């Protein structure tokens, strides 16, 4: 009897903590009532694969939100970094180097953002908007508005090689996510992101290098932007300047739905994944349903709104 009660208690605690997954599954099931085709394996797989992009962006965004900031340039990094990587390949670098360069550039973009925000005290909103425009602009100038296609096979590995019905990129994605979660929960720097977001002065007083932690958060989001861009390009076969612009709002919506605090200090990555897939699901269903694309934004906004309400209600229940 005690075991049953313990299990029930554990189930309930986890349901509360990982409520975003509840929401995701719930909405999936509800949608399935209207559109039963979404239960088909092919569709599920599609959601899984395509959702990796918004999920990676959301995770990157979450790292920055943990310290109480925002990174609007993450989508620009997702376009710029792979583009720079491909250009380096065109210049003669081998593909693996080009890929590493892509990630590196993402980190450097974040580093630049971080420095401007910490040293020059530019608000992250302002800095990352400026960076977003600048990077998008550069991509447009270089590509002249034309998507970069003709990507080498080695670059496309993640998208073209399958294990069963699942492309390699899903496994890559899973590994990246696992590393991110372990980093956030179990390393000194990871935990400090939460602490800095929770109370900057307290961290400063206890000798934690606050600015360094903030800069690291931006480097991580830049890196995740680059990874998202790379993974997406390996799937779609091209790099476009307009890539990911449409994913900025979802990348913000997903963490909010997952209960990540915009003022910092709180955020559960497992929930963020659910939030991202939820947003992805909605986008796909709305599009597939033949409804006008404009509806997507409305639905997303509605979802964020509902998420905020649900989150507020949840905090009341928990007693915060």
């Amino acid at each position, binding site marked *: 009897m005690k075991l049953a009660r313990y299990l029930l208690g554990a189930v309930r605690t986890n349901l509360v903590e990982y409520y975003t997954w509840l929401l995701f599954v719930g909405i999936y099931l509800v949608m399935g009532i209207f559109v039963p085709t979404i239960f088909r394996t092919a569709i599920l797989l599609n959601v899984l694969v395509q959702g990796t992009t918004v999920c990676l962006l959301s995770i990157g965004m979450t790292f920055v939100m943990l310290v109480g900031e925002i990174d609007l340039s993450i989508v620009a990094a997702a376009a710029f970094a792979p583009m720079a990587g491909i250009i380096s390949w065109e210049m003669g670098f081998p593909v693996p180097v080009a890929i590493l360069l892509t990630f590196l550039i993402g980190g450097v973009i974040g580093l630049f953002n971080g420095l401007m925000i910490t040293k020059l005290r530019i608000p992250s909103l302002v800095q990352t908007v400026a960076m977003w425009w600048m990077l998008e602009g550069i991509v447009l100038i270089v590509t002249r508005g034309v998507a970069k296609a003709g990507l080498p096979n080695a670059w496309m590995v993640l998208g073209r090689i399958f294990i069963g019905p699942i492309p390699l990129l899903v496994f890559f994605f899973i590994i990246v996510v696992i590393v991110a979660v372990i980093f956030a929960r*179990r*390393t*000194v720097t990871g*935990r*400090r992101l*939460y*602490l800095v*977001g*929770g*109370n900057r*002065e*307290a*961290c*400063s*007083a*206890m*000798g*934690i290098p606050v600015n360094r932690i903030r800069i690291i958060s931006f480097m991580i989001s830049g890196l995740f932007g680059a990874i998202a861009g790379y993974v997406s390009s390996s799937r779609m076969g091209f790099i476009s300047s307009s890539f990911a612009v449409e994913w900025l709002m979802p990348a913000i919506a997903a963490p909010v739905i997952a209960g990540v*605090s915009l003022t910092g*200090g*709180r955020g559960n990555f497992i929930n963020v994944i659910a939030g991202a897939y939820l947003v992805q699901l909605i986008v796909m269903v709305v599009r597939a349903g033949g409804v006008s694309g404009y509806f997507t934004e409305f639905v997303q906004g509605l979802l964020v709104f509902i998420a905020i309400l649900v989150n507020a209600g949840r905090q009341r229940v928990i007693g*915060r």
Partner: protein
Amino acid sequence: MIQVRNISKNYGTVIALSNVSFELERGKILGLVGDNGAGKSTLLKILSGDLQPSGGEIYLEGRRTRFKSPADAMKIGIAIAYQFLELVDSAMVWENFFMGRERTKRIGPLLFLDIGKMKQLTADAIAKYGPELDVDREAGELSGEQRQIIAVTRAIEANPEILLLDESFTLLYLEGRKEIVDFLKEVNKKGDITMVIVSHDLDLVKELSHFIMVLRGGEKMFFGRTDEISIDEIVRYMLP
């Protein structure tokens, strides 16, 4: 033994501290009192390395000492617990306890947090001085006294020679205050720790301190043994 000689601090034309000097023997508790703006917090921040004095010197055990930063002061053996602001509400008690000095364990080539150990050590440390506390709760859920105990215990864990406490008691109710006073007396006795306490609560200061210093307008108005001065006299020194 701390010796403070002619410490001054000014911000442009604003004088926060003016030629404040005093001596405090090891293991003694100094109660620093004064009205708002008298310079108490400023003096404490100078002692903790958070502020640089505009003039004057500090001597520890006879040696001229200068702290460039709080981290510097911590290395020398000075710990400070601020006005209950220095906890991260959204983090667990054990995280707050170990922030900045997290315990790690090596797994393969990488360093990970040794969470189990930190929880254990936190629980042990708190149990030493006061009532038991669940270290797995968010700091924001704690009462004022509990937060105070965490903040002070955390400062003590660094084995400081000198403990500075700034206005840490303002929010405490009467019963909580007794808890804190007993707690601090224990800490002082057990570790022979020199303490400087800033407080508006004159009763508390009177009960806890060996010595009292009254500041007014950045100047030292009185320094002496606690039993040599009454609360009325303290107030008279405090107010113009």
